[in-house]
């Protein structure tokens, strides 16, 4: 993601600063930038969220929509479980190099990361509850993310947005009944209740993990690298931590170098400390965001109210 061209002097300044524990925007090594969260602003999706990392409306911006779909079971698939499918797309509005096929590699990497965090039992979502009738039908949650702006640390923002979207997701209630067919055999049938008031939240969504990305710069590492810091990052690793402080996924990102094992162990320890704070912060922001969307205060924003929220 070294789209930014930095002079050797700037690179050196950032690197040595990080090694001394100083960052250009005054943060400490393990501090994140300001985050703002908005939920349920896409009415046609089952759940949605938009998360921005950065100050004054300049920052990484990710929009996530969750759409649920009933899928017929086919042989070879797990019999009594639903599924979560993720896709991430970097919009050309974020950077010129994302035009055409320019974002392919990044899309694959981020999709892979989101899938690794959300696509299995490690996500905490009760996949069993997404099954409607075993061996017949189940829910598929499509988690589709759109990266609208990139100013460093995409992965963290992406997971924040995905977590908020899944927490705000409401599934229509399904009524399963047994009916006898012509031969008198009992058959299960289901009916999706078409009532916007009669919807249920996802089970286990509170257990969803948050991700923390560490960027190694020089001999030290920082959390939530800014765009400039991203350009001098030598190695990057994303750690997903659940509210129970379990580690749900680790994935190393594109990098020029590797980590010394001792640094890696240190990072895994910091991951828990950072994640604990982040989860508390998420809770507050999410509560505020849902209260706002529930009260209907989220009217179409004008330029001034839009900036005002950041």
């Amino acid at each position: 993601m070294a789209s930014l061209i930095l002079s050797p002097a700037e690179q050196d300044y950032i690197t040595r600063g990080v090694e001394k524990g100083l960052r250009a925007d005054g943060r400490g090594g393990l501090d994140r930038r300001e985050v703002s969260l908005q939920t349920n602003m896409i009415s046609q999706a089952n759940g949605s969220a938009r998360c921005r990392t950065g100050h004054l409306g300049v920052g990484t911006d990710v929009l996530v929509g969750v759409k649920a779909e009933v899928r017929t079971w086919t042989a070879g698939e797990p019999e009594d479980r639903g599924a979560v499918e993720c896709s991430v797309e970097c919009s050309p509005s974020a950077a010129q190099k994302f035009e055409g096929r320019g974002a392919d590699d990044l899309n694959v990497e981020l999709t892979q990361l989101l899938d690794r965090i959300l696509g299995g039992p490690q996500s905490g979502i009760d996949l069993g509850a997404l099954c409607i009738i075993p061996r017949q039908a189940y829910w598929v949650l499509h988690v589709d993310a759109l990266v609208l702006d990139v100013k460093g640390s995409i992965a963290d923002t992406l997971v924040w947005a995905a977590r908020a979207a899944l927490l705000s997701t409401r599934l229509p209630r399904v009524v399963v009944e047994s009916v006898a067919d012509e031969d008198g055999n009992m058959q299960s049938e289901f009916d999706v209740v078409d009532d916007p008031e009669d919807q249920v939240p996802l089970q286990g969504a509170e257990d969803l993990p948050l991700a923390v990305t560490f960027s190694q710069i020089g001999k030290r590492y920082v959390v939530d690298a800014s765009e400039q810091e991203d350009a001098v990052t030598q190695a990057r690793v994303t750690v997903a931590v659940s509210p129970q402080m379990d580690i749900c996924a680790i994935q190393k990102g594109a990098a020029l170098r590797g980590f010394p094992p001792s640094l890696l162990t240190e990072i895994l320890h910091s991951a828990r400390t950072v994640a604990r704070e982040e989860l508390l912060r998420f809770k507050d922001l999410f509560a505020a965001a849902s209260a706002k969307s529930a009260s209907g205060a989220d009217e179409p924003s004008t330029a001034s109210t839009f900036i005002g929220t950041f």
Partner: protein
Amino acid sequence: MATNIMDRRRINGPARSVEPLYGPGAAGADPFAGGRADGRGLDQVRAIYMKTGPLSGGQHEPSESAASGSAYYEQGRVRVSCAVYGPRQGRRSNARMGVFDCEFRYAPFACSWKRRSHVRGADEKEISLMLEHAVAPAIRLEAYPKACIDAFVTVIESDGKAATIAAAINCISAALADAGIEMYDSVAACSMGLRGAQWVADCCQAEEDAAPCSMLIAHMPSADEVTYILQHGKATPEQTDQAVQTCTNMCTRVYAVICRCLQASLE
């Protein structure tokens, strides 16, 4: 026992062989003696066989093939081959540093459960990217400005996804050395799966399906850098810490085998 199965399946035995990594029982006392289907110890990697230059004509005969280097790698029933081309003029070039590109393919018959299509799947793209990330830190790319190094990996047989990726990393590493590409160090990779509260090394497909969590680490022992780490599934922080340490140590043992094979290829 495992070797019998292997021998029956292989049609043409290799002319030369390298002694297996760890003989039975070499890994020490196993608390779950006989706990694994193939009788391995918990921290035992399947027997490794490796040969450099099967595609590039080898060291001594002049090469007929266009590949600058190649390697064949076998770890139990995981079989991987890799061809390295370059340094050559690349499509995307960078005036400061070379570019390392990797393409990972499963052979249509590689997986036991289902025939794979010839069209490159999303998972193959993912793994290609992972391999690039894992191996690129080992290559001295600044020695190849404006040039491109390509690695093409074909999985002939797959048995455990994490183990296959680890084998692919080892295979690329050997093929790069065979091609004479300048590297900081060889990369050795190893995978593990969680069974109960215990980490089990180098899981085969059946073991991996049962494991709630798997860990893959690529390590450069001499440079002491972890070039890739991937944890899939949930584990407690203590388990993760333990996995990082055990896996790194096992990488060092795999590294020893790779180095010995590379040395043997020149002697």
